[in-house]
C-alpha cells in the first residue's frame, strides 16, 4: 500500500514537472510564433475607386492591409506609397493561395472622390482587385470609421492638407486585427509588415488538426512575432 502510494505520488510529480518544463520551454524557445489577436476589425461601408460599395464583409476571407493617406499628400507621402507598392508585389507572393488585398482609405473625402482616387490608383500603379482605394461621401462617417474603427488619428487643416501620421492595420480573414503599425520601430515598418504577413500565412496554412493546438498555445502564452 505504502509503496504504491509512493509510486503514484512520484508519477504525479513527474507529470506536473514535465508539464511545467514543457510550458517554460515553449515560452522561452517559442517554436511557434503568431501575431496577436488585437481586437475585432471595424465594420464599414466605403466607396472604392470605381464608385462601388466596399464593405468589411467583402474583405472577409482575405488578409487585408489597411493604410491611410490623401491624394494631395506631398511627395511619397511619408513613404507610404513606396511601402504599399512593395507590399503589392511581395504580399501575394508571401501569402501564396491565401487571398490578400490592400485597402487605402483617404483622409480627405471632400477632395478625394472615386474619380480622383481612380486617377491616383493608376498613377501609383495599383493593381485592380488587389489594391483598393476607398472613400466615404460623409466626412463625419469617415471619421468614425477611421477614428473609432481603426483607431487612426487625422486632422484636416484649413489649407486643405491633412495632419496625420503613417499607420497600417493588418486584418485577417476573420476580421480580426493582427497588426497595428503606429510608428517606426527598430525594425522598419516595411520589414515588419512583410515578416508578419509570412507569420500570418504560416499560421493560416498550418493551424489545422493537432498543429492547431500548438498555435493556440502560442496565442495563450503570448508567443508573438516581434
Amino acid at each position: 500500500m505504502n509503496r504504491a502510494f509512493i509510486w503514484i505520488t512520484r508519477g504525479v510529480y513527474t507529470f506536473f514537472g514535465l508539464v511545467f518544463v514543457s510550458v517554460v520551454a515553449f515560452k522561452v524557445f517559442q517554436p511557434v510564433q503568431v501575431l496577436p489577436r488585437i481586437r475585432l476589425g471595424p465594420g464599414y461601408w466605403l466607396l472604392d475607386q470605381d464608385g462601388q460599395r466596399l464593405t468589411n464583409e467583402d474583405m472577409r476571407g482575405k488578409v487585408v492591409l489597411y493604410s491611410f493617406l490623401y491624394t494631395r499628400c506631398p511627395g511619397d507621402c511619408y513613404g507610404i506609397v513606396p511601402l504599399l507598392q512593395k507590399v503589392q508585389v511581395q504580399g501575394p507572393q508571401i501569402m501564396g493561395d491565401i487571398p490578400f488585398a490592400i485597402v487605402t482609405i483617404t483622409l480627405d473625402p471632400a477632395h478625394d472622390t472615386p474619380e480622383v482616387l481612380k486617377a491616383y490608383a493608376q498613377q501609383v500603379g495599383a493593381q485592380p482587385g488587389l489594391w483598393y482605394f476607398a472613400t466615404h461621401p460623409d466626412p463625419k462617417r469617415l471619421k468614425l470609421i477611421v477614428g473609432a474603427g481603426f483607431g487612426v488619428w487625422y486632422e484636416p487643416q484649413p489649407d486643405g492638407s491633412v495632419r496625420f501620421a503613417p499607420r497600417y492595420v493588418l486584418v485577417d480573414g476573420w476580421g480580426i486585427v493582427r497588426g497595428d503599425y503606429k510608428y517606426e520601430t527598430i525594425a522598419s515598418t516595411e520589414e515588419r509588415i512583410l515578416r508578419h504577413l509570412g507569420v500570418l500565412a504560416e499560421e493560416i496554412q498550418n493551424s489545422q488538426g493537432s498543429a492547431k493546438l500548438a498555435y493556440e498555445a502560442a496565442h495563450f502564452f503570448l508567443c508573438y512575432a516581434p
Partner: protein
Amino acid sequence: MTAHSTLIDRHERRWIAISAALLASFAVLIGIAGFALGVQVPTLEQRVDPAKLNEDPVWSQPGVREIVPGRKYEVYIIAQTWMFVPREIVVPAGAKVTFYVTSRDIQHGFKVLDTDLNVQVIPGYVGKLSYTFKEPGEYKFICTEYCGLGHAAMAGVIKVVPPEEYQSSQ
C-alpha cells in the same frame, strides 16, 4: 494510521496547506487588483531608435491626438533632460486617453499624480498606459527617476476640462 500520515507529518501538512492558501489568496488579490481596481502593469509596447525620434512623423509632433471626438484620445510624450514634451496636455473629462511615452536620452519616469499611471521611461522603448479622467481638474505628472540636476523641475500638467468646454476650444 493512514498512509498519508506516515509520509507527511501532521503539522508539516498543515503548514503546506497554509502556504498553498497564501499563494492562492495572492493570486486572487492580483486578479482583484488587475480586473476590479484597474491596477495596470505598464507595458513596453515597442522598441524605437531614440536618435531617430525627430525623423518619425509620430514622434516629431508629440501631443494630443483626437481619435474619436470626446471619447478616445492618444497622447504622445517624449521625456528628455529635464522636461517633458509637451509639458501641458488638455483632454476632455470622461474620454479614454492612451499615453505613449518614450525617452530621447536617459532613463526617466512618468507618473501622473492621483492616478495609477506610472511607467519607467527607458530610452529605446515606448511605454503605453491608458486612463479615463472622470473628473475635470489639473493632474500633474512628474519624473520619478533621478535623472540629473534638473530632475526636480521635470514635470508637466494634464488639464482635464469638461467635454463641452473642450469642444468649444477646438
